[in-house]
C-alpha cells in the first residue's frame, strides 16, 4: 500500500511535468517564428501530451480509485499538481521557450535512460517509448542554444537573459523526498545524484559552445513537487480545464 502511494505520487509528478510543459509548448501552435519551427514545436508538444497520457493513465491505475488519465489531468486543483516550477514558466520569446526545453530535455533523457532498468515494468516501457522522443527534443533544443547563443549580438543577449531568468528553477529537477527515497530503495527509480552531475556536465558543455555563461548567483526556487506553484500555473489550469469544468464529462 505504502509502495503504491509512493509510486502514484512519483508517476503523477512525471505526468504533470509532461502535461504542463506540453500545454505550454502547444501555445506556440500557429505562432512559431517560421512554419517549419511551428510544426517542430507542435510535434514536441504532442509528444509531451502523449507521455502525459501514458503516465497519468498509469497513475490512475496505481491509485485504483477509478480515475482515468483525463480525470487526473483535468479535474484537480492547483495544489494537487506536482509539476516542476520550470515547466509552468511562461513561453517568453522563442529563446526562452527553447532554454526551458533544453534544461528539461537534458534532465528527461538521463532519467528515461535509467528508468529503462526500472523494476516496474510499466514505467520501464513508458521510458523506452519516451526516450526516443526525448533524444530528438534534446537535439533540437541543444542546437538552438548554440545557434542563438553563438548567433547575433541580439540573439546572444536575449538567450543569455533567458538563461539568467530560468537558471533558478533548475535545481528542482533533482528534487528528492521520502517518495523518491523509498522507490530508489526498491529499485523502481534511479537516484538523482548521478543524474544531477551528468546533467550539469552536458548542459555546461552545450552552453559553453553557445558562448553563454551560467549565472553565479546560486539562489534557487522550488516548490512544484509539493504543490506550491508560481502564479502562472493557475492561468494554465484555467485554460486547460475550462471545457471540462464548464461542460462536465464532455467528449469530442
Amino acid at each position, binding site marked *: 500500500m505504502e509502495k503504491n502511494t509512493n509510486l502514484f505520487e512519483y508517476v503523477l509528478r512525471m505526468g504533470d511535468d509532461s502535461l504542463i510543459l506540453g500545454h505550454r509548448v502547444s501555445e506556440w501552435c500557429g505562432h512559431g517564428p517560421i*512554419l*517549419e519551427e511551428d510544426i*517542430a514545436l507542435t*510535434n514536441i508538444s504532442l509528444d509531451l501530451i502523449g507521455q502525459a497520457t501514458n503516465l497519468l493513465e498509469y497513475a490512475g491505475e496505481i491509485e485504483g480509485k477509478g480515475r482515468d488519465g483525463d480525470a487526473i489531468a483535468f479535474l484537480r486543483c492547483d495544489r494537487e499538481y506536482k509539476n516542476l516550477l520550470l515547466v509552468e514558466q511562461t513561453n517568453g520569446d522563442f529563446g526562452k521557450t527553447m532554454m526551458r526545453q533544453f534544461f528539461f530535455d537534458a534532465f528527461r533523457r538521463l532519467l528515461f535512460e535509467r528508468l529503462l532498468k526500472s523494476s516496474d515494468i510499466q514505467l520501464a516501457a513508458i521510458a523506452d517509448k519516451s526516450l526516443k522522443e526525448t533524444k530528438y527534443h534534446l*537535439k*533540437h533544443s541543444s542546437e538552438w542554444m548554440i545557434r542563438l547563443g553563438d548567433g547575433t549580438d541580439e540573439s546572444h543577449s536575449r538567450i543569455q537573459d533567458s538563461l539568467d531568468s530560468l537558471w533558478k528553477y533548475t535545481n528542482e529537477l533533482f528534487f528528492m523526498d521520502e517518495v523518491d527515497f523509498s522507490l530508489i530503495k526498491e529499485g523502481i527509480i534511479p537516484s538523482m545524484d548521478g543524474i544531477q552531475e551528468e546533467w550539469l556536465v552536458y548542459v555546461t558543455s552545450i552552453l559553453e559552445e553557445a558562448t553563454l555563461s551560467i549565472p553565479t548567483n546560486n539562489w534557487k526556487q522550488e516548490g512544484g513537487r509539493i504543490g506550491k506553484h508560481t502564479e502562472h500555473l493557475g492561468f494554465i489550469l484555467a485554460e486547460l480545464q475550462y471545457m471540462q469544468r464548464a461542460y462536465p464529462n464532455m467528449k469530442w
Partner: protein
Amino acid sequence: MANQEWPLWEVFIRSKQGLNHKHVGSLRASDEQMAVDNARDVYTRRSEGVSIWVVESNNVFASEPAQADSLFEPADSKAYRHPMFYDVPDGISHM
C-alpha cells in the same frame, strides 16, 4: 532591421530501405542541420521515411525550360529505344 530570409533547401526522403531518395519538397533553414531537423518535422511526421537528404537549392543546376524542345522532343520520335520490339518468351512473368 533587414528582412533576411533563410536559404531554401530541397528535401529528399527515402521511404524504405532499398528505395531511392525522392524529392518531396523544399523548406527554409539557416544551416544544414536545421534543414534536416525541419525536414524530419515537416515531411516525416506520418512515418514517410527512413532517411533524409537536404541540398541547398542554390546548388541545384537545372535544365532550361526554354530548351525543352531541343532537349527532350528528339527522344519522342525514337520509339526503338524502348525495349518494346522483342517477343517475350512464354513462361516469363512480371514483364
